[in-house]
């Protein structure tokens, strides 16, 4: 090595060393997310396995700023729908071979089941105060993400004047056979949507909704795609599926924000018990709840953050304006009873 390149490499490593030390400070943009001891312990563990019910690709992009701040902890993302993650978490725990460290699930009732079964460990996040009471179970979970359900229409085939404005407008006979959504059986988000419709407008609404002969497709991305392509005129979908098509691909669809409010589902983030990297998990989870983590999430997915200091994604109105409605604590019996009732009314299997 020539003296010049030696000097260059020494100064580079000094620079990188400084950058690493700076990057691993326990505060993010002035917000304390960890103690120095936690950061050190996390770095010693060196890795975290993150189970998420959100898209793989989105989550990897969201984790990138964390990786830049804490290059000593590498994040592995495993994505699946909540039901399948639940099955993995339960089986790994029972076999004594826990792989996942931290998880985001889309169903509060299921998270409660995991807490009761001691599959989740207590967690007091230093940023907990930024989360409203409806978006956390203090000491256990915090809504690191969430989804709002809204009506959507195709702007090529439906004029703005004809577009639905209220939830009741979906029952207009002109939409018969031109309406799509997903069945209640696909997960917590769909469950919350049907619970909202029944609680707000009564059972009769669901009967009249069924009379509209809605197409029930197995996933929300299929519902949005069929509306965007003009196969269906309107539908009820998760805004998370609607947003990337509307904003990134310029699909001819527009969202409707009914003044009666819209169902909002919390996606709780939890720390898994007996996990191999508990400190790295806590550091990652705290960062995910921080302003930086939530801002990245909002930009990447078009999701909403319940934190008041995080602005919504471009093209989305503030969450408060949408009058989000949450079902609150739900028992397993009430959950199953609604599934049976809605399946019977809508004739889904």
């Amino acid at each position: 090595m020539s003296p010049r390149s030696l000097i260059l490499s020494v100064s580079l490593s000094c620079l990188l060393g400084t950058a690493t030390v700076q990057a691993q400070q326990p505060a993010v943009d002035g917000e304390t997310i960890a103690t120095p001891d936690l950061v050190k312990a996390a770095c010693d563990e060196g890795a975290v396995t993150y189970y998420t019910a959100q898209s793989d690709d989105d989550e990897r992009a969201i984790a990138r700023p964390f990786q830049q701040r804490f290059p000593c902890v590498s994040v592995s993302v495993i994505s699946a729908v909540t039901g399948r993650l639940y099955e993995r978490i339960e089986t790994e725990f029972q076999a004594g071979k826990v792989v996942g460290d931290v998880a985001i699930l889309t169903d509060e009732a299921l998270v409660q089941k995991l807490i009761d079964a001691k599959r989740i460990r207590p967690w007091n996040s230093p940023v907990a105060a930024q989360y409203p009471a409806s978006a956390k179970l203090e000491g256990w979970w915090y809504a690191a993400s969430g989804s709002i359900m809204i009506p959507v229409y195709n702007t090529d085939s439906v004029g703005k004047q004809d577009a639905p404005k209220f939830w009741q407008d979906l029952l207009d006979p002109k939409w018969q056979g031109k309406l799509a959504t997903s069945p209640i059986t696909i997960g917590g988000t769909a469950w919350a949507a049907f619970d909202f419709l029944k609680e707000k407008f009564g059972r009769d609404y669901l009967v009249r909704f069924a009379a509209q002969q809605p197409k029930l497709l197995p996933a929300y991305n299929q519902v949005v795609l069929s509306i965007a392509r003009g196969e269906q005129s309107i539908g009820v979908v998760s805004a998370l599926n609607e947003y990337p098509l509307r904003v990134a691909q310029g699909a001819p669809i527009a969202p409707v924000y009914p003044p009666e409010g819209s169902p909002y589902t919390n996606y709780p983030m939890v720390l898994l018990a007996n996990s191999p990297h508990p400190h790295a998990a806590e550091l990652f989870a705290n960062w995910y709840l921080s302003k930086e983590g939530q801002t990245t999430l909002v930009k990447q997915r078009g999701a909403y953050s319940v934190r008041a200091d995080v602005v919504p994604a471009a093209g989305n109105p503030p969450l408060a304006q949408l009058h989000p409605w949450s079902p609150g604590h739900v028992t397993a019996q009430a959950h199953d009873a609604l599934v049976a009732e809605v399946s019977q009314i809508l004739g889904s299997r």
Partner: protein
Amino acid sequence: MTRGRVFVTLLLVVTSLLIVLPVAVLAIGSFLSEPPRALHFAFSGLTFGNYIAVLGSPGFWRLLATTITLAVVGTAGAVVFGVALAWLAVRTDVPGRRILEAVAITPMFIPPLVGAFAWDILASPKSGIINILARSIGIPQAVNVYSLTGIGFVFAIYYCPYVFLFVAAALRNMDAVLEEAARMVGAGRLRTIVDITIPLTLPAFWSAGLLVFVLLIEIFAIPAVLAEPGGIHVLSVRIWELVGFTPPKVNEASALGVLLLLLITVTLVLLQNRVLAQRSFITVSGKGQRREPTSLGAWRWPLCTLGFTYLVIAVLLPFLALLLIALRRNLFFANAKALFNPVQFSFAQFGVAFGDPVVRLSLANSLLVSCGTIMLGCTLYFAVAYTVHRTRLPGRRALDIISIMPVAIPGLIIGLGYLWSWITLPIGLYGTVWIIILAYISQFSPQGVRAIAASLVQIHPELEECSRLCGAGMLRTLRHVVIPLARPGVLAAMILLLVLSFREFATALFLYTSATQVFSLTMFDVWERGSTNLVAAMALIQAGMLLSIVLVGQRFSRGATVAPGPS
């Protein structure tokens, strides 16, 4: 003899661990109220409740009837298209038969999810390209893929290559002397086909038909994309729903899997054994072979036109649709003018697909998984098929039954069985690529064993006997006589495994980690995110890659099997 018994015992142990363990765990789980996770069986919760819930759910019998009807329609179509194409390409002098042969199998390289999506783009009632073009010339609706006929057609064209592979292998192995003899005693072309060619290819015909039928019973992607929008419901989507439920109704899903297994095993396998047991299909014997193609005479060009028309509709059209989707920035066009708007076209998605490290990693993982599945799977399947069909060793019947156990159990459920059982085995495979390979080998064993068995039963035992008499041992006889003669069938099984393992994702859903994610799962994730143009670009890359591998493989095999007659 003792060595033989040791060999069979070893095979029984391996297949029991690979197949019986996960399937038995699922079967026991279907009678419990709590899932048998990590082999924890709560027998206090013994119940028929899962079966009562499944059988008593409203619309179950209609669901079953629709599933079977669609599978029968699809299988019939696939068999007609596949046999006709295989015969044209392998046994006749039709012009362009080499191209016919290469192109006929390409639809199988497209994942069913993407294939269904391509047909959705082409033939959905309102926004399908065919209907948009038809409307521009005044026809309100030309086609509707969201119908029983539409789905049956898509089933048929995506599963016709499987029939083609099996039947073409059998036809290639057939001695033309038999056809020639029929012609010499005055039988016409049609009579020769009906009385000689078809009966002699029956094992392949049955294997292929059964394989396709079973695959169509469990296929999820095509009905999810095309049947649900038309209000047509099938069992596979129901199973998917049960597992996606929160909390997942895995015990009910297992019960449904067990019911499907019973239904298909009892009826079809008995039927197959009965049909196959009645006749001899030996066409590869110690006498020399002639492989002259049948002369079609005046029918050459009409049949050529027919064959290529089918290929244009079944292969070229959906490929063009995928190319259009991959090149267009979005999928949203209301009329013919918007469809071809040049502003919308770009090659960017191919760059994204090749540049993404996750796509590259999962592609490498898929190649590794496929390679492992083919190597280990084919060795195991050959050993099982040979023991069952060419020996009289005790335990061979048990091997036969074990090898078909995973039939009709959807991959998602097999993956669940592996998660529940293999996580407890003290060899630490959970979380590695090996558990995915083993689950695939287990899941594809009915297809793999049958593909190899179909070509083994065509070989006359006199060839092996002759070799043994000349002093060659069993291994040497296998190496120099049986394997070379069964090569077309083994190659068909390898191609089948390559394709099945490359595009399977449901089995891996419970087993993968970020380091072992496979290509099909990445594609599924991209699809769920709505990046349909990236999915199309990835599907085209996959199809191109698989096709190249298969063409090179076929070329290699042809080179290696020149004059395979016994020496």
